[in-house]
């Protein structure tokens, strides 16, 4: 009796253990595979998501589920979900600044064999580079965006100011427009994604690769020059809180519903912000919401000018896209990538103000002032260092802290040295 129980117990134990083993991923047939696609934030509009779902169902008969992750939680979720075969998204959008971190640890599937088919050289080179490790492609561009300046034409002309052609002129104009209740230029103290333009414009870098290791270069003289300019600009032109990071910029340039005047005369924002900027009227469909209609007499755009004219290098917005290496549905995931890189979808991206990965379709962006500003500023834009540990640096909020302290009036060389040390600990992964 005891022996029989022992055998049964052993068999049950074996079953339980074997059930927990991972099943081998299917690579052949995509038919009927249900996959999950993670998008970051609200950049991909509803219409495009619906298109992907219908196309995927047509192509494979399986269901595509699109889950939106907020940028704030995304890093934590990717870190915990990607290695887990049961919970990993099959395809995921990934911020271009995080791509190097995840590609170097092997989170994604090798898709070098698909690159030609998906667009080859037509794909945005800097984004392809950031998703590549030792010649192997793991992540490809999804869309690119860029940041440019939105300004209140009425306030600028009332002050007798014209669109600036150099960065110096911009800084001066912004300072001149500041009043006690209104920022000349709204910039949060911890907003490094916008503030970094001043660093880049002065030839500074966040980190440089020395042989095989990355070293943080906040103490570099050019970087310090840019930071000093930024510190002065924040003090002279902005009334934003010193610890506000990237937030909803359009709130500050539309007329405040209570006071009737805007919080700021100028803002810098990603291109898609223009949908939320304009005269505010109640939404006819839903009285609790307001709709912004662009008014060309009141609002205008221009690209942030460089130190000697031209275009200042702004922070290159956008995302890459990749297939999770732990995914059980590799074939289905590859099918989705083909749909995303298809001419129809690339055109749809452009039509909705998102720079398509395949530059052949960049003309779909149109030729209105927004498209022109987007393409012009994107041409000169720069990325954060493609270092293995960069996602950790962002996760630890080191740049937010650093910029916050700089804009609070701190001693820049001392702070730069302190944060160089902190970033160096994380940047090489």
């Amino acid at each position: 009796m005891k022996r029989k129980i022992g055998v049964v117990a052993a068999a049950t134990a074996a079953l339980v253990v074997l059930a927990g083993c991972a099943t081998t991923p299917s690579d052949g047939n995509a038919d009927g595979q249900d996959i999950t696609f993670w998008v970051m934030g609200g950049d991909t509009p509803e219409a495009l998501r619906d298109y992907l779902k219908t196309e995927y169902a047509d192509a494979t008969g399986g269901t595509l589920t699109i889950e939106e992750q907020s940028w704030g939680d995304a890093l934590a979720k990717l870190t915990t979900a990607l290695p887990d075969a049961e919970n990993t998204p099959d395809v995921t959008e990934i911020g271009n600044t995080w791509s190097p971190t995840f590609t170097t640890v092997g989170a994604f599937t090798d898709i070098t064999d698909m690159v030609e088919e998906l667009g080859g050289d037509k794909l945005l080179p800097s984004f392809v580079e950031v998703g590549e490790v030792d010649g192997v492609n793991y992540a490809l561009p999804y869309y690119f965006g860029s940041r440019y300046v939105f300004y209140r034409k009425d306030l600028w002309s009332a002050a007798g100011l014209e669109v600036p052609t150099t960065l110096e002129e911009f800084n001066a104009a912004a300072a001149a427009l500041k009043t006690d209740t209104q920022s000349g230029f709204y910039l949060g103290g911890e907003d490094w994604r916008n503030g970094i333009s001043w660093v880049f414009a002065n030839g500074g870098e966040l980190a440089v690769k020395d042989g095989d290791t990355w070293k943080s270069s906040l103490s570099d003289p050019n970087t310090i020059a840019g930071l000093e300019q930024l510190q002065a600009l924040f003090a002279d032109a902005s009334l934003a809180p010193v610890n506000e990071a990237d937030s909803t910029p359009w709130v500050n340039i539309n007329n405040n519903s209570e006071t009737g005047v805007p919080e700021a005369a100028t803002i810098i924002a990603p291109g898609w912000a223009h949908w939320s900027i304009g005269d505010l009227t109640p939404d006819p469909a839903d009285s609790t919401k307001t709709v912004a209609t662009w008014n060309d007499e009141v609002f205008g755009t221009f690209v942030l000018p460089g130190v000697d004219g031209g275009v200042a290098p702004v922070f290159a917005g956008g995302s890459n896209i990749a297939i999770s290496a732990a995914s059980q549905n590799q074939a289905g995931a590859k099918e989705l990538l083909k749909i995303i890189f298809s001419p129809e979808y690339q055109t749809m991206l452009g039509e909705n103000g998102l720079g398509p990965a395949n530059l052949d379709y960049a003309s779909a962006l149109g030729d209105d002032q927004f498209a022109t500003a987007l393409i012009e500023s994107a041409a000169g834009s720069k990325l954060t260092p493609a270092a293995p540990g960069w996602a950790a640096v962002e996760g630890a909020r080191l740049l937010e802290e650093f910029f916050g302290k700089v804009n609070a009036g701190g001693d820049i060389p001392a702070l730069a040295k302190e944060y160089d040390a902190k970033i160096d600990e994380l940047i090489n992964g």
Partner: protein
Amino acid sequence: MFTRSRAPYALIVPAIAILILGMGYPLIWQVVTSFQKYGLAQQFGQPATLVWFDNYVRLATDVQFWVVVAKSLVFCVVTAFVTLAIGTLLALLMSAVTKTARLVLQISLLLAWSMPVVAAMTVWIWLFDRRRGVINYLLDLIPGVEMNRFQWLTNPLTFLLVASIIVIWMSVPFVAFSIYAGLTQVSDEVLEAAQLDGASGWQRFWWIIQPMIRPVIAIVLLLQLIWDLRVFTQIKMLQEAGSGSGDYDLLGTYIYKLGTSAQDFGMSSAVSILVLAITVALSSFYIRALLKEDEA
């Protein structure tokens, strides 16, 4: 004569087994990981290198860590004691008022306590909003107080004050109900006798009521200290509304930042073990007192 039966031990084995599996596995994993260098690469399959006490040494020499520990300890002690004081006052109020008033009070406390944390935090963040918050508006109405657009979340001190107020609001109902339950055990005759003898309200409370409900106060205080030491959700959401900078971190968010955000799981495990040690140290006083009472 009875031989000692093994049955009681056999009966509690399943419960202990589940506890060990459920809580032991993460605990053992954390202890092991705290001795390793465990980053994102290890998360994706690379083997982890054993570095023994390296993580602990790095922590012990990191000034920022000790600042966070100090802030967390001060925060938890202040918040726990204020919660206890307010909770006790409310419990005394509940035992002194009429039935309808008591019911209204209890229902309001219950609603406050059962509200999901994230929902409550959203509303509290709106209340303290610098541009449109009700708090700034109300305070501004007081003549002489200039509170227009006051930024509560820009300064670490006012940030922690706001966090403290919210945590106290969320914790008071539990304390109030527990102490109220304890108060029902206090005999009315003794109180009446004391009153007839001329004891004031405060004297009655301190010399009669308090010693009788001391076990309740002890356990409630201990729980509040432990919970307030580990507070996470409230701080994280306030940081998202204000700044994620390290100046606004308490232990909970500090561990989270090290772990899932900066992907240094080895270090964050080490910090967690240290927090566990502090918690055990706090509870040891209570456990020792409890054991002494048992022996008596």
